[in-house]
Each structure stands twice: as C-alpha cells, then as structure tokens.
C-alpha cells in the first residue's frame, strides 16, 4: 500500500513525483500523473495513486473539487486532460464488469413499474439487448438475484415497488445491485446522502463487510467521513488543483489541511468524530463549504 503524504500542487510537481511511491503489481486502480480539466477549469493535477484490492479509500474535498469527476474517470465517462489511469489492468471503459457503482439515494416515482428486486436485477443483465435466456438460465438468474438480496438483508422489502422504499432500503438494494457482477472495484458516490444516522451506519458497514468478503477495493466519495471512519484505510483529499493522500489520522490534521487549503483550517476530534472548521477556498476566497462537520441530525438539503 503506497502512502503519499505530500501535498501536491502544480508549482510543486517535483515534490509530488519524487515522493515515495511503491508500485505494487497487484494494484487494482492506478493513476499516474493524472490531471483533470472540466471545460477551462483545472481540477486535481498530477495525481499519483494506487489502490490495492480490499482497500477502502475515502474521497473528500469541498464542493466542486472533482470528487464525483474522479469516479467518472474510473467509470470511463470522463477523460483525463493528462496522465494515465488503469482499472483492473485496463484503461477505464463504460460498462466494465470489474466495476460496481452505488450512487446517492434518489426519489423514485411511486408508480414506476419496478420492484426492489427489479432494481437489483438491472445489475445482472439490465444492459443487455435482446431476449433473456431460456427457463434454466432464467431460474439461475433469479436465484443469483435472490441470493445477493439475502446477503444485504433486503429480502423483506425486495418485492415492494421502488417508489415506496425508504432511503435506507433503497441503498441496501443498490449495494446488492452493484455486487451482482462480483466487481473488483466498488465505486460509491455519496451513497449515505440524505440517510439518517442509523441507516448511514448500516449501509457503511454493509459495504465494508462486502469489501472484506470479496476483497473488492472501495472508492467512497463523501462529504462526511464520520460514518465510514472505522472502515477507511486511506483518504484522498481534493482541494482546487491540489490533493493529499494518506491515512485519515495523517491527512485530517490542522497542519495538512491548512497547507492544502492555503489558509487556516482547524481539525477537531470530538467524541471520536472529526470536525473541520474554517478555511477559505483558495480560488474564490469564499468560505469553504464542506461538511466534514455535519452533525448527527443535520440533513443536507439536496
């Protein structure tokens, strides 16, 4: 596992590329000198990162820092401006069977003609054209879907219309959907958003358990690290064009984040929770709007 504690910026490229980086042949995700631009705006630059199988990587940073775009690069939906990226020894491509994807919870219409079971089923053959297989294949597919639903403990509500599922129920089923293809990489984009704290914990521990069981690497984009803190191996923190990577205890410190934001940031540890206070956005000089400090019962209004 490579741990790169250097804070990178375009002006300190040499320090980033000369930082110790252990290249492990079994890394499932590799980024080399990877830079992202959206339109004219530069996001993270010269990013070097390797993720090992079974590793849990949290991706943090203020809004607009390119967290979701990082996932889109791994999904093959966004191209790098510069550098290289490999997922399971291949360049990312849309629809890769090596990747499972868990998005944020969303409101489904009540009348949608799909049950929880059907949502999970999409993960198996939702992308395939033409008619399904015959009777034997059909039974096998249904059994695989039922098995993964059991794994995530969602059997009780798997036959409810998806529009009537609670956020927590929906997210368990989405994890089941992502797991159906036995992916080597599980990409999670704010899957805990708008869940209450009990469901946040349940879904996080579910994802971590599946990681332990299948040895899939987890890349988890979030604005609040606290629900997943017990499971996180490393943190990738993105701010503007810069980034830092390392263990949560190493990256999430007043010193590191102040350096990264280029202004004063205080990291407080209260009752096992991490709270980040202050900091101005280095580009806009506006107060940093990030929510590592989201309180237990504070809900994001999305």
């Amino acid at each position, binding site marked *: 596992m490579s741990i790169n504690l250097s804070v990178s910026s375009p002006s300190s490229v040499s320090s980033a590329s000369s930082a110790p980086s252990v290249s492990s042949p079994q890394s499932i995700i590799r980024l080399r000198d990877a830079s992202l631009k959206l339109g004219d705006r530069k996001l993270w630059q010269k990013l070097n990162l390797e993720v090992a199988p079974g590793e849990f990587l949290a991706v943090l940073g203020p809004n607009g820092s390119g967290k979701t775009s990082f996932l889109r690069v791994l*999904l093959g*939906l966004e191209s790098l401006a510069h550098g290289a990226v490999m997922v399971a020894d291949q360049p990312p*491509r*849309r*629809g*890769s069977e090596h*990747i499972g*994807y868990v*998005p944020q919870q*969303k409101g*489904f219409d009540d*009348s*949608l*003609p*799909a*049950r929880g079971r*059907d*949502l999970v089923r*999409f*993960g198996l*053959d*939702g*992308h*395939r*054209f*033409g*008619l*399904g297989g015959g009777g034997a294949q059909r039974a096998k597919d249904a059994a695989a879907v039922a098995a993964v639903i059991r794994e995530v403990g969602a059997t009780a509500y798997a*036959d*409810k*219309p*998806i529009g*009537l599922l609670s956020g927590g129920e929906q997210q368990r089923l*989405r994890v089941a*959907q992502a797991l159906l293809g036995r992916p080597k990489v599980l*990409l999670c984009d704010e899957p805990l958003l708008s869940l209450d704290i009990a469901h946040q914990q349940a879904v996080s521990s579910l994802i971590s358990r599946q990681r332990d069981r299948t040895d899939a690497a987890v890349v988890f984009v979030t604005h609040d690290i606290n629900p997943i803190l017990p499971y996180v191996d490393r943190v990738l923190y993105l701010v503007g064009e810069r980034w830092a990577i390392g263990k949560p205890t190493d990256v999430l410190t007043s010193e590191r984040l102040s350096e990264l934001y280029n202004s004063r940031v205080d990291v407080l540890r209260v009752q096992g929770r991490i709270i980040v206070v202050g900091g101005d956005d280095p580009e806009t000089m506006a107060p940093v709007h990030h929510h590592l400090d989201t309180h237990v019962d504070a809900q994001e209004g999305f």
Partner: protein
Amino acid sequence: MDLLFYLSQPFAWHALLAATLVAVSCGLIAPFVITRSMAFAVHGTSELAFTGAAAGLLLGVGPIAGALVGALVVAGVIGLLGTKARERDSSIGVVLAFGLGLGVLLLSFYHGFATQATNILFGNIFGVGTGQLLGLLAIGLGVIAAMTYIYRPLMFASVDPEVAVARGVPVRVLGVVFLFVLALTVTAASQVVGTLLVLSLAITPAAAAQRLTARPLAVTALSVLFALVAADGGIVASLAAGTVKPSVFVTAISFGIYLLARIFGTAARGRG
C-alpha cells in the same frame, strides 16, 4: 345478425388485424411513455402527424405516408431538444401549436373528399386499403421487433438513468431510438383512433396496468392486453352499433379499464 354479417367480411378482418398490431405496439411502448414522462411528446407527435397527413393529402402521397414523415420529423426534433422533461415539454408545446395551425392551413387548400380531414383526426380503420394495411403491418412488426430488442436496457435507462450510464447503457441513443419507435407507433395508432385520440392506446392501458402491479413484465403484458381489448373490442362494438366510429368505443373501453384499475388496483400493487 348485422354484427355476424360484418365479421364475415374481409374489411372487418383487415381492420381487426391492423388494430391488433397497433394495440400490441401501443401496449409495448405505453409503460415507457409513462416511465419517461413522455405523454406530452406522444400527443405532440400525433398532432403533428396530423399536419403531415394533411400535407400528404395535398401532395397526393396519401395521409399515412404524410403522417409517418410528420411523426418522424417531430421525433427527430424532440430528440435534438434533449432530455430534460420540462424544457422538452415547453418546446413541444411551441412547435405543436404552430404545426397544428399549419395543418389546418394545408387542409383548407385541400379540395378533395371532405371527410378525409376528420378521418385523420378521429381514425378511419374501415377505410384503409390493402396497400395501407400492408404498411401498417410492416410498421407494427417493426415496432414489436425493436421493442423486444431494446426492452431491457430501455427499462434500465428509463427507471435509473444515472446507474444505466455507469453500467455502459447507451442512454441517449436509446432515448432517440425510442422516439422513432414511438413515432412509428403513433402513426399506426392514428389510423385506428385518429391523431387526437392516440393517448387512449399509447398511455391509458399502461396507466391502468401500473395500478395493478409493479412487476415490469406484468405491467407490459397487462398494458398489451388492455390495449388489445380496447382496440379490437372497439372495432367489434362499432360494427354492432352501425354508424358510430370505432375510436369512440376504443377510447371508452380504454377509459373504463383504467377506472376499474384505479378502483381495485391500489391494494393489489402494494403487495408487489
């Protein structure tokens, strides 16, 4: 007695055959029309098929060919307008109003058989000739084949587009393909119920089916069944009644099924 006599005539069998194909096509697309919030797109496409039909009459190529071209052009335009439902709807409204006006203008230039105009608006399944019937057959079979082929990824893309994109489903392309399938279906359906009443076959059956179950395949199967009962039942009822157009009965039966589904459905659906 009259009904039995009519049912022994080829024109009645032709009508029932065409209506059956139209009903299966409509029943197949209807759940997607609802899931993708495209009721207004269907309405817009069929109204502008009227404009195309009027142009077809005027140019002498026939109303069905005109309607087909009109519907396909509109489908292409809607496809270019993008995927946001609200933007799409206001644009359709703008084009629809202008297109209908244009259709009325074209009809005023047309000095042929006067009932042709009402036939476009309210359907004329008994007046369809053999050549046109073959055209409807080809359209119906094409729609059924296309929907069978794209059913699974289209359902994925309609229910959960973000994840479908991540899983490699060509969501945008499927959306455009569906618009063209929809344009073909609408053109065929307008021969049975007319351009004004297409929604009675292209949305009502699925709206009823959704009240009864949340299983996607069951919704599709029920939607096809309800469309068949409405279309073929409407034609038989019209033959029995004599002078009343089939579209009246088609829409009435379709609406009746929907009412029954609303009354008896909610409890059934909650159980999955």
